[in-house]
């Protein structure tokens, strides 16, 4: 091999070294990026083609639950008027029976109010989504920063000709 040939070969080696050098730093940076390790799910658990929550719907859902519970309670409250014992009992026992019906109605309405817990659960799920969104964004941002900080651009040493 002549001198020029050897020189060319030497330059090619130096170029390859630069490529390797930057490549190694890049690979190291990639290796440091944790990457999000989620579950094994690749599709939604129930087969849905997309998953997500519209935050503005939380209030609507909670209102729907409240209206539902109020509706059931109203039917129970009607027990006092729809069921009359005037043709069934006479005397003080009739008044006592009315009071008993009211007690049943009241305790049933209180029992049904337990369904409002689902309104609170909806609020909690919404907060969980928001928290998860923030945390995931933070994780991805950190990984992006880690990648960006590893970026190294090769600068040509010689004027472009």
């Amino acid at each position, binding site marked *: 091999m002549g001198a020029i040939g050897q020189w060319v070969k030497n330059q090619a080696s130096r170029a390859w070294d630069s490529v390797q050098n930057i490549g190694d730093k890049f690979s190291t940076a990639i290796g440091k990026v944790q990457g999000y390790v989620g579950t094994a799910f690749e599709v939604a*658990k129930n087969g849905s083609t997309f998953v997500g929550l519209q935050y503005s*719907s939380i209030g609507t859902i909670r209102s*729907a639950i409240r209206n539902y519970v109020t509706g059931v309670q109203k039917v*129970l409250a009607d027990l006092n008027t729809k069921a009359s014992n005037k043709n*069934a009992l006479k005397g003080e026992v009739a008044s006592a029976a009315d009071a*008993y019906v009211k007690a049943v109605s009241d305790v049933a309405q209180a029992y049904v109010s337990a369904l409002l817990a689902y309104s609170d659960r909806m609020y909690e799920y919404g907060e969980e989504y928001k928290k998860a969104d923030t945390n995931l964004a933070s994780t991805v941002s950190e990984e992006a920063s880690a990648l960006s900080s590893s970026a190294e651009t090769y600068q040509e040493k010689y004027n472009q000709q």
Partner: protein
Amino acid sequence: MDFQSADHGVSITGMNQYIDDINTVVLTEVAAALRDTGAVEDAVRAGWHGNAPEQFIANLNKAKEQMVETLKQLQNTFETELNGIKSSILDMDANLVDEE
């Protein structure tokens, strides 16, 4: 004398109707109201998609069915109470005056 002019007493027919009326409200109308979760389900699905909302709806439906069953128990207790009142008055009527 008719039942309406009594100051104390029980009408067997009236009591049976009274129990039926209460059954209609508690067992039928309340159960129907509890099972009418359509508006809630529509609201959920309008703004939430995936497995989570379907599980939420399933949980709500499970809770409402449990409530329907518990209210049936309440109704049974209620009916027992009213039948007890009826029996008590009928018992008194049967045993107040001994044959001489």
